[in-house]
């Protein structure tokens, strides 16, 4: 995560708001069943995006199509952007449908990041859709999604 500079104080404010929004979402989820749902993922996305339109494109989401154990799933997101002072990716947000919480990670970037690319590992509780949304400096939102199959290898009763 790139440290913001003074020029981005406004953005720092919005990050706090974002965290507040996320916390709000978290609180809401806690009283609901212990799992996110496609509906709560949409709500979490709305909390970030507001009323703005989200367009498919510019975002390359790289996650394996089939995963053995959802414990450490490799995740890589790259967004097409020149990453100049006037045209850059402000943030990359990742959401999921069925983990206990719908938010996976929010990464805040600036022009000094050089490239809008993030790689990490995350947990997936079950087979589900993962959505990555890029927030651009011009206020537009772009997205990509991927379906990940987590092979359920368990003698588990479906409780």
């Amino acid at each position, binding site marked *: 995560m790139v440290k913001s500079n003074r020029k981005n104080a406004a953005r720092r404010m919005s990050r706090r708001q974002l965290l507040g929004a996320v916390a709000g979402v978290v609180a809401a989820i806690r009283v609901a069943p*212990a799992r996110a749902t496609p509906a709560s993922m949409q709500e979490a996305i709305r909390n970030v995006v507001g009323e703005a339109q989200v367009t498919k494109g510019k975002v390359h989401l790289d996650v394996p199509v089939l995963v053995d154990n959802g414990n450490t799933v490799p995740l890589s997101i790259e967004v097409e952007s020149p990453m100049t002072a006037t045209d850059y990716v402000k943030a990359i947000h990742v959401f999921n449908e069925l983990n206990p919480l719908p938010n996976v990670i929010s990464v805040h970037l600036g022009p000094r990041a050089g490239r809008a690319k993030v790689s990490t590992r995350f947990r997936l509780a079950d087979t589900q859709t993962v959505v990555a949304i890029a927030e651009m400096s011009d206020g537009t939102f772009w997205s990509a999604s991927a379906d990940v199959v987590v*092979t359920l290898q368990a003698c588990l009763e479906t409780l």
Partner: protein
Amino acid sequence: MNYQPKFDRRSFLAGSAAAFGGLSLGFHLPLGDTAAAAEMEPEVNAWVVVKPDETVVIRIARSEMGQGTLTGLAQMVAEELDCEWSKVTYEFPTPGENVARKRVWGDFFTAGSQGIRSSNELVRKGGAAARMMLVAAAAADWKVPVAECVAADGKITHTASNRTTTYGKVAGAAAKVEPPTDIKLKDPKDWKIIGKGVKRLDTPDKTQGKTVYGIDIRLPGMLYASLKACPVNGGKIKSFDAAKIADRKGVKKVVQVEDYGVAVIADTWWHAKTALDDLPIVWDEGPSAKVSSETIAAWLKEGLDSNDGLVGNKGGDVDAALAGAAKKVEAVYAYPYQHHVTMEPQNATVLYTTDKCEVWCSTQNGEAALATASEASGVPVPKCEVYKTFLGGGFGRRATSQDYVRSAVMIAKEMPGTPVKTLWTREEDMTHGWYHPVTQCKMTAGLDKDNNLVAIHYRVSGQSILAGVMPARMQDGKDPATFSGFYAGGAEAVYGYSVPNILVDHSMRNPHLHPGFWRGVNINHNAIYIECFMDELAKEVGMDPLEFRRKLMQQHPLHLASLNHVAEHGDWGKPLPAGSGRGLAQAMAFGSYVAACAEVTVTGNSVKINRIVAATNPGYGVNPAQIERQVSGSFVYGLTGLFLGGIEVKDGRVVQENFDTYDMMRIAQMPEVRTTVLPTGGFWGGVGEPTICVAAPAVLNAITAATGKRYRTFPLRNHGLTMV
């Protein structure tokens, strides 16, 4: 020295045809060129291929490990397809094909007693769709409305004109028909194949030695690997001296396996194994080197009274009710680690190149093996493939972890272009299992002055499977599987008694052994805890164990029905000579209601289990004859665990290494088992797993009835008891 023979597909195919001539593989051999691929029979849809000679090939997604799911699934497709059962054969599509075709065959995992019940709608619809397409093709050819045609036993008839044709004749045209979207399934009352005890499709090949298991795979130019991991789970490998075995015959390479093990690759498995035995290895045994069964037991014992209980079922106010109870009864039980002891040790054969990774293995989850092959090799999923063989036993071992695939891939990566079969020794398999978790249970019951059960507290202390295998499935820090058989409601594992004040909680303590899903999973020890303690309570109030239970089960009619059935058919209440006794047990797990009435005769320390009368209500029974066999088989497994099993730990290591110290029940010890399937309809419960759990508590209660002695710790060999 790198061994790099040229491995080309043509020689592979020729070699395989010779090696596998007449053998039943169940899968297509990998075909290198598209022309040959096109020769494969056209499918009506993904589930059904009909050959010109009317043979029907049904695609089976799940694994066959002796449980009979292969036949059950085929029955379900054939039922809706309306073909002749005698013409049915099968094929296992590969997980790679499933991924490429957007998972048209759904889930491949074969565990949790889910094979039939989670497939049933999907496969029946597949069969029905194929039938509809075949009929549509015939109708189009005759230029008549579909509604005027009838399909039965592989034939299509246009009733008005009395024209008939067969599936084989129209299959080619059917493949081109638009797949139907509105598919109606038959009413269960019209089933002709489902519900019949048809003979299994895999038995003939198995009795003739034709079946290919993972351990049987032989590919041209194949090398063999023997593997050793640190004897203390969680420990690492420090060093090994390959030079000391450099001159051993047939040895090609000695390779470290990740951070925990070492393998020898050689021209024969025996050369690999014996060289590995002589390889000097230095282990870093890690933090668990001083753990023993005694230290584990002491740690678990603390959890019986600790403040860290995770709640699984709570009703009323147990503390208050116990405080005010006229009489309190308490007991502590303990159930040990168990090993899966699949007859076929863990193994996998891998052919790795940077472009492609292929695995041949016995697995309970083809897709998990595929994902593991991709993760371990670094080759993307679309360029990996897994060919599933028949399993020489699964029981959950081959579902819990695909570790045997991962290590085989890591080893094969050291020999790109050469197939390598990694086969574990029995000792390696026994000491590196994913064990049924160790637990203890303290039970405290409160009775009122009229001897009614008013409060009960079950505190389970012990290992969580999910924490060790799939932490992502924990819920609010709890392992829900721990509470199997204790749930207040739901469709899977409901507690069959009504007690106004109840608390079931779990103090999670995870020793260093890998936990795993052992056939039945947590209901194995939970049923012992619940059902043996129920007998203790009945004795405390001087009531017949059946009557004591009945009083508490009025709100649980399905649990009660299974229990009543075995009591009646097990001659409950009829007199027995001194030294003999009967015992009851009932439980619900994996969606099914199971019960058993056991009758034993005890002479000194010798226990003869004369008979077990069992009942299982799985909602629907696809193949009742197979269900009966599953029950008997599960009793072998559960009683072996009760009398002879029990994995011990010393110096961080698993003590039992082979069948000399971890024995199995023998045919002569097997009781007569009479099973009734009581399908009440309306739900789909499992069969592979729940049935096991009632054998042990029913036998234990019978032993107490016969001798007056109560056993609360297991295995029974620790008390000197033997099955005869």
